[in-house]
């Protein structure tokens, strides 16, 4: 098996992607109002469903592994929960009452799949849950003290705490406890009394810049975030924070692969591994160092031979615009692909080049 699987699912950007539980299907948004679902077919993917309920660009997709439900967020200010109807073989949308007046920017299911959180440009996070009484998905707003668009979210493993990265240069940890839906959580390092909208932590990387991505460590006892100032920070309950300034461009997405490792990627087109060593967090290595280009001999003989055999001139054949890295443009999303004992062994990335890449950490 090749260590890195590369799939070109779209020729424009992919704004979001999510796999189902057994990784046989993937939902992607090809930079428009549609969500496409592909099924694995040998080495490639076949399009089986197109979900076209949104009116504007789909900004986030998440696939709940156990309940097999999809949730999608869009710039049309709506979120749909999709249930698969096995009789008609179709995905059926259910509109969620979000009550926001700006675009929804991001969406994630909670670990227990009974709630999800929607980030939005309306300076709120809508925490959504199913209201049995009225038989619909409704929401409660996390509002204070957010002052700008929320760009990313991540759930704590206890299903209650929620981290958010915002364009007001702050990463925050909130309690998203919903009475009647959640059991009272055991005390965590972030606090023990957790009514809805408790601020359990507020962090800044110090030099401004939107916070593009946030992620809890597998235990939930640390929070990593990265902003547009090319700094990646790891924050701990109580306010301790460690920042690593980068010499490269900012990251748009990050995940923890274990308690001591973080993978981040963004405007540099390549995933990067961070490690917590004895001297603290540091950049360990660039995962996709890029392959050397094979430069063919450009002799007159080769040129005429190419004309003869391929009917093309060697100049158009020699595609100089191709970059050395696998991704040819900004990576906007990293997601765990296979997780064994809490450690991520494989992860998937998608970005502006329309590629979906599955990376194997062990063989890299």
């Amino acid at each position: 098996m090749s260590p890195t699987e590369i799939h070109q699912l779209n020729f424009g950007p992919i704004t979001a992607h999510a796999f189902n539980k057994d990784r046989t299907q993937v939902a992607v948004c090809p930079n428009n109002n549609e969500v496409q679902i592909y099924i694995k077919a040998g080495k490639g993917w076949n399009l089986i469903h197109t979900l076209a309920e949104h009116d504007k660009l789909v900004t986030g997709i998440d696939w709940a592994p156990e309940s097999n439900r999809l949730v999608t967020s869009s710039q049309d200010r709506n979120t749909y929960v999709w249930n698969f109807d096995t009789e008609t073989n179709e995905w059926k949308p259910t509109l969620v009452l979000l009550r926001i007046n700006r675009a929804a920017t991001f969406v994630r299911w909670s670990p227990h799949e009974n709630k999800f959180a929607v980030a939005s440009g309306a300076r709120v996070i809508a925490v959504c849950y199913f209201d049995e009484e009225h038989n619909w998905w409704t929401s409660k707003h996390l509002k204070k003290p957010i002052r700008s668009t929320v760009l990313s979210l991540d759930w704590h493993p206890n299903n209650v705490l929620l981290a958010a990265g915002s364009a007001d240069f702050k990463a925050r940890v909130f309690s998203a406890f919903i009475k009647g839906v959640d059991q009272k959580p055991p005390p965590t390092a972030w606090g023990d009394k957790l009514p809805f909208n408790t601020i359990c932590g507020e962090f800044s990387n110090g030099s401004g810049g939107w916070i593009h991505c946030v992620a809890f460590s597998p235990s939930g006892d640390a929070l990593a975030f990265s902003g547009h100032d090319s700094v990646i920070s790891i924050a701990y309950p109580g306010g301790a924070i460690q920042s690593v300034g980068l010499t490269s461009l900012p990251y748009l997405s990050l995940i923890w692969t274990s308690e001591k490792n973080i993978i981040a990627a963004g405007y540099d087109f390549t995933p990067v591994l961070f490690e917590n060593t004895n001297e603290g967090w540091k950049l360990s290595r660039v995962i996709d160092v890029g392959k050397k280009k094979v430069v063919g001999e450009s002799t007159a003989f080769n040129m005429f031979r190419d004309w003869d055999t391929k009917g093309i001139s060697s100049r158009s054949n020699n595609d100089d615009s191709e970059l050395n890295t696998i991704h040819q443009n900004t990576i906007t999303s990293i997601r765990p692909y296979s997780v064994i004992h809490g450690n991520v062994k494989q992860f998937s990335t998608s970005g502006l080049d329309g590629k979906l890449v599955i990376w194997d950490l062990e063989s890299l």
Partner: protein
Amino acid sequence: MSFRSFDIDSLDEDILAQDELFVFSNGVEITPENASNNVKTKGIEVRNQLTRGDTANALITAIESPPYGVHTIDAKDQNTKIVMDVLNSIKATDIPSLVKLLSREQQDILMKYIYRGMSSPDLYNSTVLLNWHEKLTEVAGVGCIVRVITDRKTV
């Protein structure tokens, strides 16, 4: 298309103003008088260090604790002048080793001043600044430039 020129944010009561953004990026406001006085003392110290030939420390003193703030415009102008004097008095061959001496934070501040200097080509020599910019980018990378662009604590 006249609706496009409406400032719709001003109709919203909860807007982020310039000085709030400054606070959100951990900026601490000081009065313009205090800032000017601090810069004056700094200027004297830097001049002493330069006459002693201690260029490395003169550079560090000059860029240390810049007069950040929304209203400290005079102090910023004065401090920029001090930094430019130091940059101009350092030999081109010494630049790479000096840049390596600086911490990550100091490199970021130096980059801020380089951009500040280049924004007034009538006052400061851009050739010198471009040389500094090149050498600093070699060490601190494009990440340093991104930090200067995003940071609301301007110099």
